[in-house]
């Protein structure tokens, strides 16, 4: 089998699929947007205080102990905050006013379970398992019908699950199946609603990635590069979600976070490079389910906490700023005597960003994306018009 025959088969299959099942939606489609949106989820509760450190807070050095050493010579963002020295690309973006940090941010979730916290972060509810679909999927229902989304993962993460079909892609080490088998599988799944839908997506995704599969996402930069290719393709996705893990730094936090943040930095750098001119229409959101304790624990790490830091990056971001209604790190200012107190809702950040980025009415977007949340006033000017 040659690559050419694979493409021919799949292209044929996919066009048939689109004509039959998406025809009705395409008839009503509005003008497609050029805007791109990438959600990088940090699974495991990333320590925002060790990413964008409030070095100007009088209590900072005392509370953070040895963790503060990393920021002794770190680049300052303003009078209060310094950026982790591993994040060189992102620091350059900040200088170019294309990176924005929002601190003391949290979802409505207030307990400390990763799994419940991630569910709230991804569904956009106020408690775990209250909503059955993800806010990123609901965003798709507000966008033109041909705006597609893709998850850079073997399976679709919660934020992208829901009524709109979404593709997933991760590089495969298996040899391609033969065209004839693929055609027969299509036929066999005709009568099975679930597998039929999944299979349509699988074959359509293959068409886009058949030439890209050699780029296997072995490291963060390659993953960022792969995502950029998915987003840059003519008929590609407008929205992508990338999963990262390894943020649960209960022990030995300094070394581990330095590596993690370097990887994140490389990923963002590769996205910027890969998107080229499209970067000016792009917003990348980085967020985690909750933060970590202010004090260092007994094993040079931190335990599960509450508020953390979110990042917005991209040419469309009105950056070069840190936005924070800073609650302070003194003991009396902490949430439940241990965590950074949240002063800004992650839902407000996401709702404000997406409504501005995609030209949606803020109230409409808020109601759709976070139906259970009593949303605060939208933040203005996060995104360039």
């Amino acid at each position, binding site marked *: 089998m040659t690559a050419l025959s694979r493409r021919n088969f799949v292209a044929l299959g996919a066009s048939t699929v689109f004509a039959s099942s998406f025809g009705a939606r395409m008839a009503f489609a509005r003008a497609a947007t050029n805007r791109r949106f990438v959600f990088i989820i940090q699974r495991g509760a990333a320590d925002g205080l060790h990413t964008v450190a409030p070095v100007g807070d009088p209590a900072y050095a005392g509370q953070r102990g040895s963790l503060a050493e990393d920021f002794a010579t770190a680049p300052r963002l303003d009078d209060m905050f310094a950026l982790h020295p591993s994040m060189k690309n992102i620091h350059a973006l900040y200088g170019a006013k294309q990176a924005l940090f929002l601190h003391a941010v949290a979802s409505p979730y207030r307990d400390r379970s990763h799994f419940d916290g991630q569910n709230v972060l991804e569904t956009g509810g106020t408690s775990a398992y209250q909503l059955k679909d993800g806010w990123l999927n609901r965003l798709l229902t507000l966008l033109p019908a041909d705006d597609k989304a893709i998850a850079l993962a073997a399976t679709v993460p919660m934020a992208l699950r829901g009524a709109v079909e979404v593709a997933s892609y991760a590089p495969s080490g*298996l040899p391609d199946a033969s065209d*004839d088998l693929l055609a027969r*599988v299509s036929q066999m*799944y005709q*009568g099975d609603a679930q597998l039929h839908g999944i299979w349509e997506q699988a074959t359509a995704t293959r068409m886009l990635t058949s030439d890209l599969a050699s780029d296997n*996402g072995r490291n963060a930069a390659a993953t960022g590069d792969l995502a950029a290719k998915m987003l840059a393709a003519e008929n590609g996705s407008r929205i992508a979600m990338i999963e990262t893990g390894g943020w649960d730094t*209960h022990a030995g936090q300094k070394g581990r976070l330095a*590596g993690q943040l370097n990887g994140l930095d490389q990923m963002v750098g590769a996205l910027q490079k890969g998107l080229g001119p499209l970067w000016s229409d792009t917003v990348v959101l980085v967020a985690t389910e909750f933060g970590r304790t202010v004090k260092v*624990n007994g094993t040079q790490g931190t335990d599960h906490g509450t508020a953390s830091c979110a990042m917005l990056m991209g040419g469309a971001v009105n950056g070069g700023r840190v936005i924070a209604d800073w609650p302070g790190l003194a003991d009396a200012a902490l949430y439940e005597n241990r965590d950074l107190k949240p002063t800004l809702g992650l839902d407000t950040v996401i709702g404000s960003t997406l409504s501005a980025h995609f030209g949606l009415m803020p109230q409409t977007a808020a109601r759709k994306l976070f139906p259970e949340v009593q949303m605060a006033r939208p933040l203005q000017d996060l995104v360039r018009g």
Partner: protein
Amino acid sequence: MSDASIALNRFGLGARPGEDAGNDPRKWLAGQIAAFDPRPQAIASQIPSTQVARNLADFYERQRLLRLENPGPRRRAVSPAKPAAAQPAMAEGAMMQDMQATQPAPTMQPAAKPLYQGEDAAMLARREARRQQQQAYVGMVSARALTAINSPTPFAERLVHFWANHFAVSADKLELVGLSGTMEFEAIRPHVMGKFGDMLNAVERHPAMLLYLDQAVSIGPNSPAAQRQRGRRGGLNENLAREIMELHTLGVRSVYTQADVTEFARAMTGFTVAGIGRARGAGGLDGEPGSFVFADRLHEPGTRTILGKQWAGQGEEQAAAVLGHLATHPATAKHIATKLARHFASDDPPAPLVARLEKAFLSSKGDLPTVYRALIASPECWAPKPAKFKSPWEWSISAMRTLGTQQLQPNAVNGLMGQLGQPVWKPGSPAGWDDVAGAWAGPDAVMRRVEAAERMAQRTKNLIDARQRAAELFPDALSPATAQSIARAESPGQGLALMLVSPEFMRR
């Protein structure tokens, strides 16, 4: 699905050639409780945790000596409190496969630069240690698969996999690569047909769990060790205590608070592992490397208040008493009942089934066979519509059983599971793998099964008639559409590939 097909596929792991569930499928299932072999040959021939630990201890010792010989400019020669390899080993081998398969997350280890003379030897030692641990891991993955493929008690083997996922560890750090499988073999299998409390006790004392969730390094702030080491590293780590309450017993959002977690973490101090892991920093623990030890001098003295009760006990007894209480707590019964119901009946566990299992658990004080019998007797588990989308592991094992696989290439199963997105003992989180269709029924995941099915079918060299196999595997339960697709295949091999990805085979 017919009852026979449900017994073979939903309760079991698919049928080997010639296997059937007999005249009474329920009896066939219940009979497996007594017939289960906790230590079959393939598993008995693997190295035990003590041997894995001894290899690790040797490596740490070699590293220590190398550091003494070559005190580098960046290192203090006298405080080897933390072996370098105790950092999460993210760069090579096992980890790469894991990352690639589950999440395209960044690999994040700065490139190693030779800093001083002698580092080459240290690097070599590290590589050798990784290779050794990886070899043990791959062998255990194969042993697990071979046992499942050849087992005459597939329902019991499915339960082993269920419990290993319930008490998930993830082979992401060097210490866990070789130890993860030994926990299933040493702490899960012996108790699968016993009391839940015994399994809980064995798991929470196993080196894999103690190292994975950082219990081995947790030190009571007022313990003798902390008093002596004032100002040096060491303190409370609540990771394991939290996950015991959240994941292993009571369940999230149930009856406990943050204060209960912290108090339980204090009670648990002293639970540690001899000879390996970062706990070596605490120094001088007697015992064979890798064995459980209770270290009095790490233990936080005093009475604890947990779940509204006072726990006065001394030393190891204190946490043991709390574990005993958790093991038969009504919240635990509900949590376990819900997970079993989700596994055997539906992604949305039916409430009457959960209530029935809960009652069986409570009235028998966590006697697992009693719970399994309630499961077998429950009509919700016998609903004719396929209830569950198979995980990659379930799909692979049932495929190999169907094909009559007898032997495995050393790395075959490990490689396959990485490619299908479910590397064995590497869920990446203590919550284990999700047990709902949403986690597995994705476009890329299904495409990979199709690719794998074609490759597996090609290896059978057209010797198996898929029409006949499908009829045996799905007695009175094969749809006309699938039967037709298989019958019209261009070759027996292609027919088999189609059978392996048919709607009937993707679900159970």
